[in-house]
């Protein structure tokens, strides 16, 4: 097993920023994250099951964050392992990682241009202590303990030691006053390597596409970006808001008094007050899948939807649907029914006019979305009616030319899956 990555914050600031903001977003959600290195990309996952590894069913109060960092973000990317696609999966503390990045940031901002090298190092002495602890504690299953390794992160910082005249004289009178010194920073981040079976359990959640509404949100840097940004953040000034309802609505032709075909609202319905924040700017929307034939299948979001569909067809793995913890049995049954009589459901939704997609999520999760919105370029919001909500952010990274001609580089992407908190 071998892992060696190099990234340079001053030579490719955009790429570095992607990795950096991914780490800080993951750190804002949970204490630990799963890093899955494959020969093509690094996937960083924040999932509630990563620490317990008991079940892949999402609980109602937990979201999952999946971040993709293509390998060409790194100036050098070497991953070798015995598993398929050279997969190496590990779990580590986000805070430690984030602090290292902060130190590196500081060094870059002071004009340094050093590489940051990340290597996997075996730490036999750490594993001894872990297994012996376990043995003394439980006296069983030392073999099942995950091996602990270290992600060794190193970078060099060049500093100018501007010695003043007096100090130079005291130091012996010779030697130039403008000496440069190199500080070599080296960190070891403890990580827990995950077994193949554990790794297999961490799978990207799928959304129920039978009643799915997708909106391509205005680009943050575009004409409507600032407006949409304040739309997302308007809710934050209300204290004591725990849950919000996202509501997407399509108006049919006869409702011609609306300037838009679509309406996106944030709704809070509390005992003694009611709030509705409505976005009136442009909204690029599509209903999946019943409207798919009417729309040109050009956008990446559309492709994502198709991907989702294929996944569902292939796996039909009900355990991966986002479910509510409070009523697992109920909703589980519902989902199964949904899938079985899928065609029927589609028919039903076609008959329901005007189609409305609503989901209740935590306002805390929505706040994470507002931070993600600032950091990315293409954002898609998907609402699966009364089940889940997905905030899909992509960062295009220009084109690359090789012998096969020009083609776009793989996008950096962050997908935030939020389960509903309760029924609409």
């Amino acid at each position, binding site marked *: 097993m071998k892992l060696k990555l190099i990234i340079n914050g001053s030579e490719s600031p955009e790429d570095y920023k992607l990795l950096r903001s991914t780490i800080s977003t993951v750190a804002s959600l949970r204490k630990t994250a799963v890093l899955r290195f494959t020969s093509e990309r690094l996937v960083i996952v924040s999932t509630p099951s990563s620490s317990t590894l008991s079940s892949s069913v999402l609980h109602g109060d937990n979201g999952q964050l999946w971040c993709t960092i293509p390998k060409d973000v790194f100036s050098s990317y070497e991953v070798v392992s015995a598993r398929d696609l050279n997969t190496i999966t590990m779990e580590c503390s986000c805070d430690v990682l984030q602090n290292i990045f902060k130190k590196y940031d500081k060094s870059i901002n002071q004009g340094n241009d050093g590489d940051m090298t990340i290597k996997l190092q075996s730490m036999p002495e750490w594993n001894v202590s872990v297994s012996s602890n376990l043995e003394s504690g439980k006296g069983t299953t030392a073999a099942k303990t995950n091996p602990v390794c270290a992600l060794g992160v190193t970078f060099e910082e060049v500093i100018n030691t501007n010695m003043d005249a007096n100090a130079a004289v005291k130091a012996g009178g010779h030697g130039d006053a403008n000496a440069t010194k190199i500080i070599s920073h080296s960190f070891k981040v403890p990580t827990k390597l995950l077994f193949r079976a554990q790794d297999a359990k961490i799978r990207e959640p799928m959304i129920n596409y039978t009643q799915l509404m997708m909106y391509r949100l205005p680009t943050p840097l575009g004409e*409507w970006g*600032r*407006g*949409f*940004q*304040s*739309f997302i*953040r*308007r809710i*934050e*000034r*209300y*204290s004591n808001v725990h849950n919000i309802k996202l509501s997407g609505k399509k108006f049919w032709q006869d409702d011609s008094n609306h300037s838009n075909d679509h309406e996106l609202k944030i709704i809070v319905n509390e*005992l*003694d*007050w*009611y*709030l*509705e*924040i*409505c*976005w*009136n*700017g442009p909204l690029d929307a599509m209903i999946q899948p019943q409207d798919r034939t009417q729309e040109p299948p050009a956008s990446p979001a559309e492709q994502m939807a198709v991907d989702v569909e294929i996944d569902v067809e292939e796996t039909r793995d009900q355990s991966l649907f986002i479910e509510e913890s409070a009523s697992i049995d109920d909703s589980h049954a519902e989902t199964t029914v949904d899938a079985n009589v899928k065609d029927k459901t589609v028919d039903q939704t076609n008959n329901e006019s005007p189609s409305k997609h609503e989901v209740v999520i935590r306002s805390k999760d929505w706040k994470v979305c507002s931070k993600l919105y600032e950091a990315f370029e293409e954002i898609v919001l998907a609402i699966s009616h009364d089940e889940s909500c997905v905030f899909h952010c992509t960062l295009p990274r220009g084109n690359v030319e090789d012998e096969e001609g020009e083609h776009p580089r793989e996008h950096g992407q962050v997908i935030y899956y939020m389960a509903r908190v309760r029924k609409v």
Partner: protein
Amino acid sequence: MFDQTTLFSASTVHLEHITTALNCLTPFGMKDDVLIIIDKDGLSFARENNRVISIQLYLSKELFISYNYNPPNEDADFHTKLCVKINHILDGISIVSRDKDDVVECTLSYNGEGTPFVLIFEDSVITEKVEYSTYLVRDWDPTGLELEMDAITLECIMKGDVLYSALQDMKEVGCKECYLYARAAADGKHVFALISKGQLGLSKILLPSERSILEKLEVYHPLSHERLYDSPVIGFFDFATFDKMRSSAKIASKVLLRKDIHGLMSVNILSQTDDIIVSDAKKPRAVKNTSLPLSKDYPGIVIDISVLEKIRMDEVDISEIRFLMESGDKSLAPAYNPVDVPEQRKMATGAVALQQDESLLFDKRSASEGPAKGADEEYLPATNDIPLFF
């Protein structure tokens, strides 16, 4: 948006200004109901705490671009009352994260009993509507908190910022109870002081008597209404209650203080719009205010606060306060001179001429200290000179 049949609707763009105004209500109970009284001239927000202190805040209709109040009858004094929680309204009004180049227009509306109080915020891309239930109306009962105009003993006008910094200082020294001391002087050198009583003992904050700060101070005889000079008016308040007016004083340009014989103090605060624009000018968002000036007729925020005195003071308290206030005056004969701050100050200044009567009080100690001090004084210049020669 609203037709003429709506009982009340008004819209404004001066959200920062209203936020500033409503923030004055928060010390009176952040999560409590505030009574909103709507009439043809504007809105007033009223709240009363334990019949000890009350606040009324007026927002004149000139603050609104449009102001429609359609009472069911022609009575000019007709008004509508409703109750909403202070924090609810403040949360809604204070739009912080917003596009700075855009103007948010806010429409307030209410359509009588059983309907919610509605705020609608609109800018070019977002429409936000928030409805607050108005279940109960706790009626306004100002009994005991109304100033008796025929029995006023003190009337005083001062600058708001001076009162604010005095209150701020009192809070910082950990004031528990406070006294108000006011004395008019025939020569115009009035005295207005706030005295804090806390763990640190008594400490007085004397407000400058310049006309530019203390514009007017008059003390009246409660029955004959004649002006009195050199006769102090003393008030005694619980500081936690008294301090509730601090956030109002912060935005005040002028404060009118009046106190009647029954121990009620009424504080009228006027906050001129100019002041708001000036104080907001430090923040970048003030550009909005200058580009959309308020109507010239707008009188500013008007706040009325009434505070009741804590208890009747006994003679000991009064004499203590009088002593504290008058001990600084040179005109007073040092007939009564216990061990106290002013006493020590005199010793520290090191006058060789210790008064005769003091040595009577401190017979041996001061007698021995006096000469010693005198000797020190004589030697000091010499010792100071010595290092220069080395």
